[in-house]
Protein backbone atom coordinates (compact mmCIF):
# COMPACT_ATOMS: atom_id res chain seq x y z
CA UNK A 1 0.00 0.00 0.00
CA UNK A 2 1.24 3.48 -0.77
CA UNK A 3 1.84 6.35 1.62
CA UNK A 4 -1.42 8.03 0.55
CA UNK A 5 -3.37 5.18 2.19
CA UNK A 6 -1.24 4.53 5.26
CA UNK A 7 -2.83 4.76 8.69
CA UNK A 8 -1.93 7.38 11.29
CA UNK A 9 0.10 4.78 13.19
CA UNK A 10 1.99 3.70 10.06
CA UNK A 11 2.98 7.29 9.22
CA UNK A 12 3.81 8.25 12.80
CA UNK A 13 5.94 5.12 13.40
CA UNK A 14 7.94 5.62 10.20
CA UNK A 15 8.56 9.26 11.01
CA UNK A 16 9.60 8.39 14.57
CA UNK A 17 11.94 5.71 13.18
CA UNK A 18 13.46 8.12 10.66
CA UNK A 19 12.32 6.01 7.69
CA UNK A 20 10.12 8.80 6.38
CA UNK A 21 10.29 12.59 6.54
CA UNK A 22 7.36 14.93 7.02
CA UNK A 23 8.57 16.82 3.93
CA UNK A 24 8.21 13.64 1.86
CA UNK A 25 4.69 13.07 3.22
CA UNK A 26 3.77 16.62 2.29
CA UNK A 27 5.23 16.37 -1.23
CA UNK A 28 3.42 13.09 -1.88
CA UNK A 29 0.06 14.35 -0.65
CA UNK A 30 0.31 17.68 -2.48
CA UNK A 31 1.18 15.85 -5.71
CA UNK A 32 -1.81 13.56 -5.31
CA UNK A 33 -4.12 16.50 -4.68
CA UNK A 34 -2.75 18.18 -7.82
CA UNK A 35 -3.38 15.02 -9.86
CA UNK A 36 -6.75 13.95 -8.55
CA UNK A 37 -8.66 16.83 -6.99
CA UNK A 38 -9.52 18.54 -10.28
CA UNK A 39 -11.93 15.65 -10.79
CA UNK A 40 -12.87 14.95 -7.15
CA UNK A 41 -13.44 18.56 -6.06
CA UNK A 42 -12.76 18.05 -2.35
CA UNK A 43 -10.49 21.01 -1.55
CA UNK A 44 -11.54 24.66 -1.41
CA UNK A 45 -8.17 26.06 -0.29
CA UNK A 46 -4.67 24.63 -0.01
CA UNK A 47 -2.05 25.75 2.48
CA UNK A 48 1.47 26.38 1.26
CA UNK A 49 4.12 28.11 3.33
CA UNK A 50 2.70 27.37 6.76
CA UNK A 51 2.40 23.60 6.28
CA UNK A 52 5.83 23.47 4.58
CA UNK A 53 7.35 25.16 7.65
CA UNK A 54 5.47 22.81 10.00
CA UNK A 55 6.83 19.78 8.11
CA UNK A 56 10.37 21.18 8.23
CA UNK A 57 10.04 21.72 11.98
CA UNK A 58 9.02 18.09 12.53
CA UNK A 59 11.97 16.88 10.48
CA UNK A 60 14.31 19.20 12.40
CA UNK A 61 13.03 17.89 15.74
CA UNK A 62 13.47 14.32 14.59
CA UNK A 63 17.06 15.01 13.44
CA UNK A 64 17.83 16.74 16.74
CA UNK A 65 16.46 13.78 18.69
CA UNK A 66 13.72 15.88 20.30
CA UNK A 67 10.46 14.16 21.27
CA UNK A 68 7.80 14.13 18.53
CA UNK A 69 4.11 14.81 19.15
CA UNK A 70 1.52 12.03 18.51
CA UNK A 71 0.39 13.08 15.00
CA UNK A 72 3.83 14.20 13.78
CA UNK A 73 3.72 14.32 9.97
CA UNK A 74 0.13 13.08 9.63
CA UNK A 75 -1.54 14.93 6.71
CA UNK A 76 -5.05 16.19 7.50
CA UNK A 77 -7.76 18.32 5.92
CA UNK A 78 -10.28 20.55 7.71
CA UNK A 79 -13.89 21.24 6.90
CA UNK A 80 -14.07 24.85 5.78
CA UNK A 81 -16.25 25.91 8.71
CA UNK A 82 -13.29 25.52 11.10
CA UNK A 83 -11.44 28.82 11.26
CA UNK A 84 -7.76 28.80 10.37
CA UNK A 85 -5.36 31.64 11.06
CA UNK A 86 -4.11 33.09 7.79
CA UNK A 87 -5.95 30.55 5.60
CA UNK A 88 -9.17 31.52 3.81
CA UNK A 89 -12.31 30.18 5.50
CA UNK A 90 -15.65 30.40 3.71
CA UNK A 91 -18.11 27.92 5.34
CA UNK A 92 -18.99 27.17 1.71
CA UNK A 93 -20.72 30.56 1.49
CA UNK A 94 -20.24 33.57 -0.76
CA UNK A 95 -20.88 35.79 2.24
CA UNK A 96 -17.44 34.82 3.61
CA UNK A 97 -15.59 34.78 0.28
CA UNK A 98 -12.05 36.03 0.78
CA UNK A 99 -12.22 36.13 4.58
CA UNK A 100 -8.91 35.37 6.28
CA UNK A 101 -9.52 34.52 9.97
CA UNK A 102 -7.17 36.07 12.54
CA UNK A 103 -7.07 32.95 14.76
CA UNK A 104 -7.20 29.14 14.82
CA UNK A 105 -10.18 27.16 16.14
CA UNK A 106 -9.20 25.22 19.29
CA UNK A 107 -9.42 21.91 17.41
CA UNK A 108 -7.11 23.28 14.71
CA UNK A 109 -4.62 24.56 17.27
CA UNK A 110 -4.67 21.15 18.97
CA UNK A 111 -4.02 19.33 15.69
CA UNK A 112 -1.14 21.64 14.85
CA UNK A 113 0.34 21.23 18.34
CA UNK A 114 0.08 17.45 17.86
CA UNK A 115 2.22 17.72 14.72
CA UNK A 116 -0.48 17.22 12.08
CA UNK A 117 0.17 18.73 8.65
CA UNK A 118 -2.85 20.84 7.68
CA UNK A 119 -3.03 20.40 3.89
CA UNK A 120 -6.04 22.62 3.36
CA UNK A 121 -9.76 23.25 3.71
CA UNK A 122 -12.41 20.96 2.27
CA UNK A 123 -15.83 21.48 0.77
CA UNK A 124 -19.20 21.46 2.55
CA UNK A 125 -22.81 22.43 2.13
CA UNK A 126 -23.08 26.15 2.88
CA UNK A 127 -22.77 26.63 6.68
CA UNK A 128 -23.21 22.85 7.07
CA UNK A 129 -26.80 22.96 5.81
CA UNK A 130 -27.25 19.98 3.54
CA UNK A 131 -26.77 16.27 3.04
CA UNK A 132 -24.97 16.09 -0.32
CA UNK A 133 -22.42 18.96 -0.48
CA UNK A 134 -24.45 20.15 -3.50
CA UNK A 135 -25.32 23.27 -1.49
CA UNK A 136 -21.73 24.56 -1.49
CA UNK A 137 -21.54 27.97 -3.17
CA UNK A 138 -18.20 26.99 -4.70
CA UNK A 139 -17.92 23.57 -6.27
CA UNK A 140 -19.25 20.08 -6.74
CA UNK A 141 -17.55 17.28 -4.78
CA UNK A 142 -17.86 13.81 -6.28
CA UNK A 143 -18.11 10.46 -4.54
CA UNK A 144 -14.85 8.58 -5.23
CA UNK A 145 -16.74 5.26 -5.47
CA UNK A 146 -18.94 6.56 -8.30
CA UNK A 147 -18.37 10.07 -9.62
CA UNK A 148 -21.98 10.39 -10.81
CA UNK A 149 -23.03 10.35 -7.15
CA UNK A 150 -22.80 12.77 -4.22
CA UNK A 151 -20.34 12.21 -1.35
CA UNK A 152 -23.04 13.00 1.21
CA UNK A 153 -22.86 16.03 3.44
CA UNK A 154 -22.41 18.38 4.84
CA UNK A 155 -18.80 17.16 5.50
CA UNK A 156 -18.69 15.72 1.95
CA UNK A 157 -15.32 17.22 0.98
CA UNK A 158 -13.61 15.60 3.96
CA UNK A 159 -15.26 12.20 3.47
CA UNK A 160 -14.33 12.16 -0.23
CA UNK A 161 -10.75 13.30 0.46
CA UNK A 162 -10.20 10.62 3.12
CA UNK A 163 -11.71 7.88 0.93
CA UNK A 164 -9.65 8.88 -2.12
CA UNK A 165 -6.36 9.20 -0.21
CA UNK A 166 -6.11 12.99 -0.46
CA UNK A 167 -5.43 13.19 3.29
CA UNK A 168 -5.07 10.64 6.08
CA UNK A 169 -7.82 12.12 8.22
CA UNK A 170 -10.20 15.05 8.19
CA UNK A 171 -12.10 17.04 10.80
CA UNK A 172 -15.78 17.58 10.08
CA UNK A 173 -18.76 18.90 12.01
CA UNK A 174 -22.00 17.07 12.73
CA UNK A 175 -25.23 18.91 13.59
CA UNK A 176 -27.71 16.28 12.37
CA UNK A 177 -25.51 13.65 10.72
CA UNK A 178 -23.01 15.73 8.75
CA UNK A 179 -20.03 13.53 9.71
CA UNK A 180 -21.72 10.11 9.84
CA UNK A 181 -23.84 10.35 6.67
CA UNK A 182 -20.97 11.29 4.30
CA UNK A 183 -18.77 8.73 6.05
CA UNK A 184 -21.35 6.06 5.20
CA UNK A 185 -21.65 7.27 1.58
CA UNK A 186 -17.86 7.32 1.06
CA UNK A 187 -16.97 4.12 2.92
CA UNK A 188 -15.00 5.75 5.74
CA UNK A 189 -15.29 5.96 9.53
CA UNK A 190 -17.05 9.04 10.94
CA UNK A 191 -17.32 9.90 14.64
CA UNK A 192 -19.64 12.48 16.20
CA UNK A 193 -18.51 12.93 19.81
CA UNK A 194 -20.80 13.63 22.76
CA UNK A 195 -22.02 17.23 22.85
CA UNK A 196 -19.42 19.01 24.97
CA UNK A 197 -16.63 16.44 24.46
CA UNK A 198 -14.87 18.64 21.88
CA UNK A 199 -14.48 22.43 21.86
CA UNK A 200 -16.62 24.44 19.46
CA UNK A 201 -14.48 27.59 19.78
CA UNK A 202 -13.64 28.77 16.27
CA UNK A 203 -16.24 26.51 14.69
CA UNK A 204 -18.54 28.59 12.47
CA UNK A 205 -21.84 28.09 14.29
CA UNK A 206 -24.87 26.51 12.63
CA UNK A 207 -27.05 25.22 15.53
CA UNK A 208 -25.20 25.73 18.78
CA UNK A 209 -27.07 23.19 20.92
CA UNK A 210 -26.35 20.42 18.35
CA UNK A 211 -23.01 21.20 16.62
CA UNK A 212 -20.00 19.01 17.38
CA UNK A 213 -16.58 18.48 15.74
CA UNK A 214 -15.28 14.99 14.98
CA UNK A 215 -12.96 12.96 12.76
CA UNK A 216 -13.41 11.23 9.41
CA UNK A 217 -10.81 8.50 8.92
CA UNK A 218 -10.10 5.26 7.05
CA UNK A 219 -10.07 3.17 10.24
CA UNK A 220 -11.52 3.05 13.73
CA UNK A 221 -8.01 3.18 15.21
CA UNK A 222 -7.34 6.43 13.32
CA UNK A 223 -10.62 7.89 14.62
CA UNK A 224 -9.46 7.05 18.16
CA UNK A 225 -6.10 8.77 17.53
CA UNK A 226 -7.78 11.92 16.20
CA UNK A 227 -10.36 12.06 19.00
CA UNK A 228 -7.55 11.71 21.57
CA UNK A 229 -6.03 14.97 20.31
CA UNK A 230 -9.19 17.09 19.94
CA UNK A 231 -11.20 15.92 23.00
CA UNK A 232 -11.17 17.74 26.31
CA UNK A 233 -12.15 20.93 28.10
CA UNK A 234 -11.50 24.31 26.52
CA UNK A 235 -11.83 27.41 28.69
CA UNK A 236 -12.94 29.32 25.55
CA UNK A 237 -16.09 27.14 25.21
CA UNK A 238 -18.37 27.21 28.25
CA UNK A 239 -20.28 24.17 26.91
CA UNK A 240 -17.17 22.00 26.69
CA UNK A 241 -17.17 19.53 29.55
CA UNK A 242 -14.50 19.81 32.24
CA UNK A 243 -14.09 16.04 32.58
CA UNK A 244 -11.05 13.78 32.02
CA UNK A 245 -10.43 12.18 28.61
CA UNK A 246 -9.76 8.42 28.68
CA UNK A 247 -7.20 6.63 26.50
CA UNK A 248 -9.16 5.78 23.36
CA UNK A 249 -6.50 3.46 21.93
CA UNK A 250 -7.09 1.22 24.96
CA UNK A 251 -10.75 0.93 24.00
CA UNK A 252 -9.83 -1.09 20.90
CA UNK A 253 -9.83 -4.43 22.68
CA UNK A 254 -11.49 -6.43 19.89
CA UNK A 255 -13.68 -7.97 22.58
CA UNK A 256 -17.47 -7.62 22.56
CA UNK A 257 -18.28 -10.62 24.75
CA UNK A 258 -21.29 -9.99 26.97
CA UNK A 259 -22.05 -6.56 25.50
CA UNK A 260 -25.75 -5.88 24.95
CA UNK A 261 -26.31 -4.59 21.39
CA UNK A 262 -29.66 -2.76 21.25
CA UNK A 263 -31.61 -2.80 17.98
CA UNK A 264 -34.13 0.07 17.98
CA UNK A 265 -37.27 -1.28 16.32
CA UNK A 266 -38.26 2.03 14.71
CA UNK A 267 -34.98 2.29 12.79
CA UNK A 268 -35.41 -1.12 11.18
CA UNK A 269 -39.12 -0.71 10.47
CA UNK A 270 -38.28 2.53 8.65
CA UNK A 271 -35.60 0.90 6.51
CA UNK A 272 -36.82 0.14 2.99
CA UNK A 273 -33.48 -0.71 1.33
CA UNK A 274 -33.09 -4.52 1.34
CA UNK A 275 -29.33 -4.46 0.76
CA UNK A 276 -28.71 -2.15 3.70
CA UNK A 277 -30.98 -4.37 5.79
CA UNK A 278 -28.95 -7.44 4.76
CA UNK A 279 -25.65 -5.70 5.59
CA UNK A 280 -27.00 -4.79 9.04
CA UNK A 281 -28.23 -8.36 9.62
CA UNK A 282 -24.75 -9.60 8.78
CA UNK A 283 -23.22 -7.09 11.18
CA UNK A 284 -25.56 -8.16 13.99
CA UNK A 285 -24.78 -11.84 13.33
CA UNK A 286 -21.03 -11.16 13.38
CA UNK A 287 -21.29 -9.41 16.76
CA UNK A 288 -23.44 -12.20 18.22
CA UNK A 289 -20.97 -14.78 16.90
CA UNK A 290 -18.24 -12.95 18.86
CA UNK A 291 -20.18 -13.14 22.10
CA UNK A 292 -22.35 -10.01 22.08
CA UNK A 293 -26.02 -10.26 23.05
CA UNK A 294 -28.72 -8.85 20.80
CA UNK A 295 -31.51 -6.89 22.55
CA UNK A 296 -34.63 -5.42 20.94
CA UNK A 297 -35.29 -1.89 22.15
CA UNK A 298 -37.81 0.79 21.28
CA UNK A 299 -37.40 4.55 20.76
CA UNK A 300 -41.06 5.55 20.41
CA UNK A 301 -40.51 9.22 19.48
CA UNK A 302 -38.10 8.49 16.61
CA UNK A 303 -40.53 9.71 13.95
CA UNK A 304 -40.68 13.15 15.57
CA UNK A 305 -36.91 13.67 15.47
CA UNK A 306 -36.95 15.08 11.94
CA UNK A 307 -39.59 17.66 12.78
CA UNK A 308 -38.02 18.66 16.09
CA UNK A 309 -34.65 18.97 14.38
CA UNK A 310 -35.96 21.13 11.53
CA UNK A 311 -37.44 23.57 14.04
CA UNK A 312 -34.56 23.69 16.53
CA UNK A 313 -31.69 23.80 14.02
CA UNK A 314 -33.14 26.56 11.77
CA UNK A 315 -34.21 28.57 14.84
CA UNK A 316 -30.68 28.49 16.22
CA UNK A 317 -29.26 29.12 12.75
CA UNK A 318 -31.42 32.20 12.20
CA UNK A 319 -29.98 33.61 15.42
CA UNK A 320 -26.36 32.51 14.77
CA UNK A 321 -26.29 33.79 11.20
CA UNK A 322 -27.53 37.24 12.25
CA UNK A 323 -23.84 38.10 12.68
CA UNK A 324 -23.32 38.14 8.90
CA UNK A 325 -24.52 41.69 8.41
CA UNK A 326 -21.84 43.16 6.14
CA UNK A 327 -20.42 45.38 8.87
CA UNK A 328 -17.34 43.85 10.50
CA UNK A 329 -16.22 41.16 8.04
CA UNK A 330 -17.53 39.27 5.04
CA UNK A 331 -19.44 40.56 2.05
CA UNK A 332 -20.89 44.09 2.13
CA UNK A 333 -23.35 45.25 -0.52
CA UNK A 334 -23.48 48.89 -1.61
CA UNK A 335 -26.32 50.74 0.12
CA UNK A 336 -27.11 54.25 1.32
CA UNK A 337 -28.92 53.29 4.53
CA UNK A 338 -28.15 50.72 7.19
CA UNK A 339 -31.26 48.53 6.82
CA UNK A 340 -30.69 48.18 3.07
CA UNK A 341 -27.03 47.40 3.72
CA UNK A 342 -28.00 44.52 6.04
CA UNK A 343 -30.71 43.18 3.76
CA UNK A 344 -28.78 43.42 0.50
CA UNK A 345 -25.54 42.03 1.94
CA UNK A 346 -27.41 39.00 3.31
CA UNK A 347 -29.64 38.62 0.26
CA UNK A 348 -26.62 38.57 -2.06
CA UNK A 349 -24.33 36.57 0.23
CA UNK A 350 -26.49 33.61 1.32
CA UNK A 351 -27.53 30.72 -0.92
CA UNK A 352 -31.06 29.28 -1.27
CA UNK A 353 -30.88 26.58 1.45
CA UNK A 354 -29.41 28.99 4.00
CA UNK A 355 -32.11 31.55 3.21
CA UNK A 356 -34.76 28.85 3.58
CA UNK A 357 -33.51 27.85 7.04
CA UNK A 358 -33.11 31.45 8.21
CA UNK A 359 -36.72 32.10 7.14
CA UNK A 360 -37.94 28.90 8.79
CA UNK A 361 -36.10 29.72 12.02
CA UNK A 362 -37.28 33.32 12.06
CA UNK A 363 -40.86 32.10 11.57
CA UNK A 364 -40.54 29.63 14.45
CA UNK A 365 -39.03 32.18 16.86
CA UNK A 366 -41.18 35.21 16.13
CA UNK A 367 -43.42 36.68 18.76
CA UNK A 368 -46.55 34.61 19.32
CA UNK A 369 -45.21 31.47 17.64
CA UNK A 370 -42.44 30.54 20.06
CA UNK A 371 -44.55 28.19 22.22
CA UNK A 372 -46.06 26.36 19.24
CA UNK A 373 -42.72 25.72 17.55
CA UNK A 374 -39.41 26.19 19.37
CA UNK A 375 -40.66 25.37 22.87
CA UNK A 376 -42.73 22.45 21.60
CA UNK A 377 -39.73 21.11 19.66
CA UNK A 378 -37.58 21.36 22.80
CA UNK A 379 -40.19 19.40 24.73
CA UNK A 380 -40.19 16.72 22.03
CA UNK A 381 -36.40 16.78 22.24
CA UNK A 382 -36.72 15.93 25.94
CA UNK A 383 -38.98 12.97 25.04
CA UNK A 384 -36.43 11.74 22.47
CA UNK A 385 -33.67 11.98 25.08
CA UNK A 386 -35.82 10.07 27.59
CA UNK A 387 -36.30 7.32 24.96
CA UNK A 388 -32.52 6.96 24.70
CA UNK A 389 -32.09 6.94 28.49
CA UNK A 390 -34.60 4.08 28.74
CA UNK A 391 -32.97 2.14 25.89
CA UNK A 392 -29.56 2.42 27.55
CA UNK A 393 -30.99 0.72 30.64
CA UNK A 394 -31.31 -2.39 28.49
CA UNK A 395 -28.39 -2.01 26.08
CA UNK A 396 -24.75 -0.90 26.18
CA UNK A 397 -24.72 0.32 22.59
CA UNK A 398 -27.33 0.77 19.86
CA UNK A 399 -26.80 -0.48 16.31
CA UNK A 400 -28.72 1.06 13.39
CA UNK A 401 -28.22 1.84 9.71
CA UNK A 402 -26.49 5.22 9.21
CA UNK A 403 -28.54 6.14 6.15
CA UNK A 404 -31.81 4.99 4.51
CA UNK A 405 -30.07 4.61 1.11
CA UNK A 406 -26.57 4.38 -0.35
CA UNK A 407 -25.07 7.46 -2.07
CA UNK A 408 -27.60 9.07 -4.40
CA UNK A 409 -26.99 10.80 -7.75
CA UNK A 410 -26.54 14.54 -8.23
CA UNK A 411 -29.83 16.49 -8.39
CA UNK A 412 -31.74 13.44 -7.11
CA UNK A 413 -33.52 15.30 -4.31
CA UNK A 414 -36.18 17.53 -5.86
CA UNK A 415 -37.57 19.25 -2.74
CA UNK A 416 -36.07 20.41 0.56
CA UNK A 417 -38.14 17.83 2.49
CA UNK A 418 -36.77 14.99 0.35
CA UNK A 419 -33.22 16.11 1.13
CA UNK A 420 -34.05 16.40 4.86
CA UNK A 421 -35.16 12.73 4.84
CA UNK A 422 -31.56 11.68 4.05
CA UNK A 423 -30.76 12.28 7.74
CA UNK A 424 -33.65 10.43 9.39
CA UNK A 425 -31.36 7.91 11.16
CA UNK A 426 -28.71 10.39 12.32
CA UNK A 427 -30.70 13.37 13.68
CA UNK A 428 -31.89 11.91 16.99
CA UNK A 429 -28.30 11.34 18.16
CA UNK A 430 -27.63 15.10 18.04
CA UNK A 431 -30.93 15.93 19.75
CA UNK A 432 -29.96 13.54 22.55
CA UNK A 433 -26.39 14.89 22.72
CA UNK A 434 -25.09 11.32 22.35
CA UNK A 435 -21.91 10.14 20.66
CA UNK A 436 -22.36 8.31 17.35
CA UNK A 437 -20.07 6.43 14.98
CA UNK A 438 -20.56 5.31 11.38
CA UNK A 439 -18.41 2.40 10.28
CA UNK A 440 -18.49 0.66 6.87
CA UNK A 441 -20.26 -2.71 7.01
CA UNK A 442 -20.30 -3.82 3.38
CA UNK A 443 -20.90 -2.86 -0.24
CA UNK A 444 -24.14 -2.83 -2.21
CA UNK A 445 -24.53 -4.81 -5.47
CA UNK A 446 -23.68 -1.52 -7.25
CA UNK A 447 -20.40 -1.36 -5.35
CA UNK A 448 -21.46 1.47 -3.05
CA UNK A 449 -20.48 1.54 0.64
CA UNK A 450 -23.02 0.87 3.41
CA UNK A 451 -22.60 2.33 6.89
CA UNK A 452 -23.57 0.90 10.28
CA UNK A 453 -24.29 3.47 13.00
CA UNK A 454 -23.43 2.87 16.64
CA UNK A 455 -24.84 5.10 19.40
CA UNK A 456 -23.70 5.08 23.02
CA UNK A 457 -24.33 6.80 26.34
CA UNK A 458 -22.98 10.34 26.74
CA UNK A 459 -19.17 10.38 27.00
CA UNK A 460 -18.90 6.68 26.14
CA UNK A 461 -17.00 7.15 22.87
CA UNK A 462 -14.79 4.27 24.05
CA UNK A 463 -17.75 1.91 23.66
CA UNK A 464 -18.32 3.09 20.07
CA UNK A 465 -14.66 2.55 19.20
CA UNK A 466 -14.59 -0.86 20.87
CA UNK A 467 -17.65 -2.18 19.03
CA UNK A 468 -16.81 -0.26 15.84
CA UNK A 469 -13.39 -1.91 15.71
CA UNK A 470 -15.02 -5.33 15.77
CA UNK A 471 -17.56 -4.36 13.07
CA UNK A 472 -14.69 -3.05 10.95
CA UNK A 473 -12.67 -6.27 11.14
CA UNK A 474 -15.67 -8.63 10.90
CA UNK A 475 -17.77 -7.10 8.11
CA UNK A 476 -15.89 -3.96 6.95
CA UNK A 477 -14.76 -3.25 3.42
CA UNK A 478 -11.94 -5.84 3.63
CA UNK A 479 -9.54 -3.76 1.57
CA UNK A 480 -12.06 -2.75 -1.13
CA UNK A 481 -11.09 0.64 -2.53
CA UNK A 482 -13.00 3.31 -4.43
CA UNK A 483 -12.36 3.08 -8.16
CA UNK A 484 -13.98 6.34 -9.23
CA UNK A 485 -10.94 8.65 -9.22
CA UNK A 486 -7.14 8.31 -9.34
CA UNK A 487 -6.82 4.68 -8.30
CA UNK A 488 -3.84 3.86 -6.09
Amino acid at each position, binding site marked *: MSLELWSIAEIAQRIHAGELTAARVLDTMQARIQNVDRELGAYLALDGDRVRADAAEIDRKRMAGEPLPPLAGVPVSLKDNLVTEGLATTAGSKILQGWIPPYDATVVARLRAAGALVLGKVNLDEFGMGSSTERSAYKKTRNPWDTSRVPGGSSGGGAAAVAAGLCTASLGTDTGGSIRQPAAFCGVVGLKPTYGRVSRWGVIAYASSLDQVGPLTRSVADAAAMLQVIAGHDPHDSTSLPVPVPSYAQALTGDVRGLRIGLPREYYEGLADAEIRAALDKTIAALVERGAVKVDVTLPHTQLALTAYYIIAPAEASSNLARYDGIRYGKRAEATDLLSLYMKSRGEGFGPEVKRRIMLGTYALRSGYYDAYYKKA*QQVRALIKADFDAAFEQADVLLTPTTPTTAFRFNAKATPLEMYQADIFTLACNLGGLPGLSVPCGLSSEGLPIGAQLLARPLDEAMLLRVGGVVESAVGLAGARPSGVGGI
Partner: protein
Amino acid sequence: MSTLTRKEVEEIALLARLHLEASELEALQGELTAILDHFSALAAVDTTDVAPMTHALPIELPLRPDVVEPSLPASAALAAAPKREGDLIVVPAIIPGSDP
Protein backbone atom coordinates in the same frame (compact mmCIF):
# COMPACT_ATOMS: atom_id res chain seq x y z
CA MET B 1 -51.60 24.29 9.26
CA SER B 2 -52.63 27.13 7.02
CA THR B 3 -50.98 28.44 3.89
CA LEU B 4 -48.43 31.22 4.34
CA THR B 5 -49.43 34.40 2.56
CA ARG B 6 -47.05 36.40 0.43
CA LYS B 7 -47.33 39.22 2.97
CA GLU B 8 -46.30 36.90 5.83
CA VAL B 9 -43.27 35.74 3.87
CA GLU B 10 -42.30 39.38 3.26
CA GLU B 11 -42.71 40.16 6.99
CA ILE B 12 -40.51 37.24 8.00
CA ALA B 13 -37.87 38.30 5.46
CA LEU B 14 -37.83 41.78 6.98
CA LEU B 15 -37.52 40.34 10.51
CA ALA B 16 -34.61 38.20 9.21
CA ARG B 17 -33.03 41.25 7.51
CA LEU B 18 -32.98 39.29 4.27
CA HIS B 19 -33.58 40.88 0.89
CA LEU B 20 -35.41 38.42 -1.36
CA GLU B 21 -36.17 38.79 -5.06
CA ALA B 22 -39.79 38.33 -6.20
CA SER B 23 -38.97 34.87 -7.56
CA GLU B 24 -37.42 33.85 -4.22
CA LEU B 25 -40.44 35.10 -2.27
CA GLU B 26 -42.71 33.05 -4.48
CA ALA B 27 -40.64 29.88 -4.18
CA LEU B 28 -40.30 30.26 -0.40
CA GLN B 29 -44.02 30.76 0.04
CA GLY B 30 -44.64 27.29 -1.38
CA GLU B 31 -41.63 25.59 0.24
CA LEU B 32 -42.20 27.00 3.71
CA THR B 33 -45.89 26.09 3.57
CA ALA B 34 -44.97 22.49 2.70
CA ILE B 35 -42.40 22.29 5.49
CA LEU B 36 -44.69 23.88 8.09
CA ASP B 37 -47.41 21.48 7.06
CA HIS B 38 -45.02 18.64 7.81
CA PHE B 39 -44.39 20.22 11.23
CA SER B 40 -48.07 20.09 12.16
CA ALA B 41 -47.51 16.53 13.47
CA LEU B 42 -45.83 18.12 16.45
CA ALA B 43 -49.03 19.74 17.72
CA ALA B 44 -50.55 16.31 18.34
CA VAL B 45 -47.80 15.23 20.74
CA ASP B 46 -48.74 15.38 24.40
CA THR B 47 -46.04 17.41 26.13
CA THR B 48 -47.94 18.22 29.32
CA ASP B 49 -45.44 18.58 32.18
CA VAL B 50 -42.47 17.97 29.88
CA ALA B 51 -39.72 20.49 30.57
CA PRO B 52 -38.16 21.89 27.38
CA MET B 53 -34.67 20.51 26.83
CA THR B 54 -32.45 23.54 26.38
CA HIS B 55 -29.15 21.72 26.75
CA ALA B 56 -27.89 18.36 25.55
CA LEU B 57 -26.31 17.68 28.91
CA PRO B 58 -27.08 19.08 32.35
CA ILE B 59 -24.27 21.57 32.76
CA GLU B 60 -23.93 24.62 34.91
CA LEU B 61 -22.68 27.65 33.07
CA PRO B 62 -19.36 28.40 34.75
CA LEU B 63 -18.15 31.80 35.79
CA ARG B 64 -14.54 32.88 35.46
CA PRO B 65 -12.64 35.54 37.38
CA ASP B 66 -13.06 38.99 35.84
CA VAL B 67 -9.43 39.54 34.89
CA VAL B 68 -7.90 40.99 31.75
CA GLU B 69 -6.40 38.38 29.47
CA PRO B 70 -4.51 38.77 26.20
CA SER B 71 -6.78 39.05 23.18
CA LEU B 72 -6.54 39.86 19.48
CA PRO B 73 -4.92 43.22 18.71
CA ALA B 74 -7.40 45.70 17.24
CA SER B 75 -5.54 45.71 13.92
CA ALA B 76 -6.09 41.93 13.51
CA ALA B 77 -9.72 42.09 14.62
CA LEU B 78 -10.41 44.93 12.16
CA ALA B 79 -8.39 43.54 9.25
CA ALA B 80 -11.42 42.02 7.52
CA ALA B 81 -13.76 45.01 7.90
CA PRO B 82 -15.17 45.95 4.48
CA LYS B 83 -14.76 49.71 5.09
CA ARG B 84 -12.51 51.34 7.67
CA GLU B 85 -11.12 54.64 8.87
CA GLY B 86 -8.28 54.02 11.29
CA ASP B 87 -9.59 51.80 14.08
CA LEU B 88 -13.22 52.56 13.18
CA ILE B 89 -15.63 50.70 10.91
CA VAL B 90 -17.52 52.96 8.50
CA VAL B 91 -21.27 52.37 8.05
CA PRO B 92 -24.07 54.37 6.42
CA ALA B 93 -25.77 56.97 8.60
CA ILE B 94 -28.04 55.39 11.20
CA ILE B 95 -30.26 58.45 11.62
CA PRO B 96 -31.93 59.30 8.29
CA GLY B 97 -30.75 62.55 6.77
CA SER B 98 -27.51 62.74 8.82
CA ASP B 99 -24.94 61.89 6.15
CA PRO B 100 -21.56 60.94 7.60
